């Protein structure tokens, strides 16, 4: 029996009761392991908390006031933004490029595998290898630059450390992000491309007017995920520059970790975390709205 295409979806009665059992495991996970500790953390942000002795001393907004006056507050914001913009900028463009290449130029599994290889290596190891490869004195990259007669580059100087870290993570994540986008490209029906091919048009034109718009929900998703993840960068810096030189790579998570573990000031660390959470929620919400991630352009 064939189904007539309806232009407007019939309004169903609410699927709420059906939805509940579908959501229960996820909701339990959310409440127990995210919401409850999260709320507890928010409460702790209004106190002075020594995690070892268990002492909790309520101190109102003192942590927040201190945070806004802390020199690290503005600095963390600047350097974290610097990281996010460079990282996401390059990563998204390169990943999109790779995904389209995989989609339109080759079906080779080998290439897919190669492109994903960096992601298979733990980010701590990736950081250590690049720290060596980019070393001013002993690194391979500078050895090549030097042998070409050019000036060696201090990749981990105060000015370049953050961009270098950003690019190291681009290297690691471009294949992974490409794979996510590729999965989305798979979902675009072939006949849309066939129609575009019949209409005539260059690859670039097809990409711009067909692929990109239809990729919107997936791209929106990828951007929200990667931006939110990018803001929480920690391991790469913890293993290499550790927040230095001076405070050039002192991103939020490094600062929070230092306050929590180094200074044993969990209340203050919680306050900074709460700020970061709010910042990220606003950014995620704005991104979702701007990119209309809730809708699909595929009107069928």
């Amino acid at each position, binding site marked *: 029996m064939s189904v007539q295409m309806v232009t407007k979806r019939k309004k169903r009665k609410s699927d709420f009761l059906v939805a509940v059992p579908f959501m229960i495991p996820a909701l339990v996970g959310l409440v127990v392991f995210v919401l409850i500790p999260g709320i507890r953390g928010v409460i702790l942000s209004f106190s002075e908390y020594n995690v070892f002795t268990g002492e909790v001393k309520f101190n109102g907004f003192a942590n927040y006031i201190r945070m806004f006056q802390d020199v690290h507050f503005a600095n963390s914001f600047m350097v974290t933004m610097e990281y996010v913009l460079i990282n996401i900028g390059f990563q998204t463009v390169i990943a999109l490029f790779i995904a389209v290449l995989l989609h339109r130029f080759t079906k080779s599994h080998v290439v897919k595998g190669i492109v994903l290889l960096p992601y298979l290596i733990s980010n701590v190891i990736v950081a250590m290898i690049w720290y060596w490869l980019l070393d001013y004195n002993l690194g391979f990259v500078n050895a090549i630059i030097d042998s070409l007669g050019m000036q060696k580059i*201090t990749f981990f100087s105060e000015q370049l450390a953050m961009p270098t870290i950003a690019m190291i993570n681009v290297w690691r994540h471009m294949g992974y992000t490409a794979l996510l986008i590729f999965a989305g490209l798979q979902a675009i029906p072939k006949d849309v491309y066939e129609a575009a091919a019949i209409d005539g048009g260059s690859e670039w034109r097809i990409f711009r007017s067909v692929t990109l718009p239809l990729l919107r929900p997936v791209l929106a998703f990828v951007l929200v995920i990667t931006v939110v993840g990018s803001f929480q960068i920690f391991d790469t810096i913890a293993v290499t520059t550790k927040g230095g030189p001076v405070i050039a790579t002192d991103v939020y998570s490094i600062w929070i970790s230092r306050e929590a573990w180094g200074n044993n000031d969990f209340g203050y660390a919680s306050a900074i975390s709460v700020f970061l959470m709010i910042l990220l929620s606003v950014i995620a919400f704005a991104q979702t709205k701007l990119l209309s991630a809730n809708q699909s352009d595929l009107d069928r």
Partner: protein
Amino acid sequence: MKTFKTIAALAVAAALPLSVAVAPANAAATTITYGLWDSNQLPGYQQCANDFHKANPNITVKITQAGWDDYWKKVNAGFLSGQGFDVFTSHLAFFPDFVTNKQILPLDSYIKKDKVAVNSLYQPGLASLWKAPDGHQYGLPKDFDTIAVFANKKMTDDAGISAATLANLTWNPTDGGTYEKTIAHLTIDKNGVRGDEKGFDKNNVAVYGIWMEGSGGGDGQTQWSFLAASNGWKVNDGPWNTNYHYDSPKLAATIKWWAGLVDKGYMPSFAKQNGVGWPDQLAAGKVAMATNGSWMTGYVFGLKNAKFEPILAPTPVGPTGKRASMYNGLADNISAKTKHPAEAWQWVKYLGSAACQDVIASKAVVFPAIPSSTAKAVKAFTAKGIDVDAFYTHIKNKTTFLFPIANKKSQINTIINPVMDAIMSGTKDVSALKTANDQITALFK
């Protein structure tokens, strides 16, 4: 619906075997856990544990080793979970926090009961390092370290610098003394011109005379503390004292001279030395000398290769007419969460005794704290072909000064570290030290 109930049931059933706990051990015998970070010391301590078990058959010591970063994570997580080490190798950098957070046990009652001569048994000064302002003794000294110059003998030979010259360097903040002359002579630019010769191109250095190992932050233990001390500088007025002297002109002069080595081309700039560490730079022939601690001896001497032959030299004699070296002592602490304090004490007592320290001495990795054991260690190093007089001279001539222990060390570091980094990278000058000192003083008001 049904499928979900099945899945949930399966999940629980599958998970049960994963959560079965290990059965408790035999009640009569106790096992205590011990932690340390240096894998080179593991064989020595394992032997101590075996010997200890022979002497105390009802106590077994299980040793776990984890590298520095992971080690302290484990120690702290252990306090929180209650399942951490019973006894662990401790460090003065974290000792004040452990006391404040009540994470370790005071040992006074045990020391008194077992009549341990804590104030006379060990090298002078070490025991006092582990006595907190609350008057309690928290550890028995186990080993100590001092600072010396690690150099590449192949390079010093090529430069015509004899071992005798190397062993008798002098320094002052004005012209750097023979210390600077040696560093300059060992620096070679891309064209083979040495740092003290005409035509030296300080912008194209191939081999640096000395390495900067970061700025050293507030302590400069391995970087500049020995220079500042030989210039008569003290960071504060004693252990736990809160009267800081980062604003002293003696320190300013020292740091200014040291940072000046970068401008002269003898030492890599802050940006250029960020990365692979000094031992590997020595091994690769990128630098001729580096100052560091005795705990690195085994590692550096193990890096010997076609380009690199390690040699040690004592720190230079300064304006005070004497050498200086920071003197740090490690001890073992007992966790406040231990379920076996009596057995833990027996192990700590053994670690602090000559029986164990002699074993450690024989492995030639560190200098144990008991003087007779120290002498044995020196012999063991010599037997391995390593002349450690450069480290030991400070003990013989009493030219050591204590590692700075203080409360709020972390907050102090947050203030002084970026300032030192900035001075060494050339973005601030030594006058910034005064501002930092004011901020540090304010912490204790």
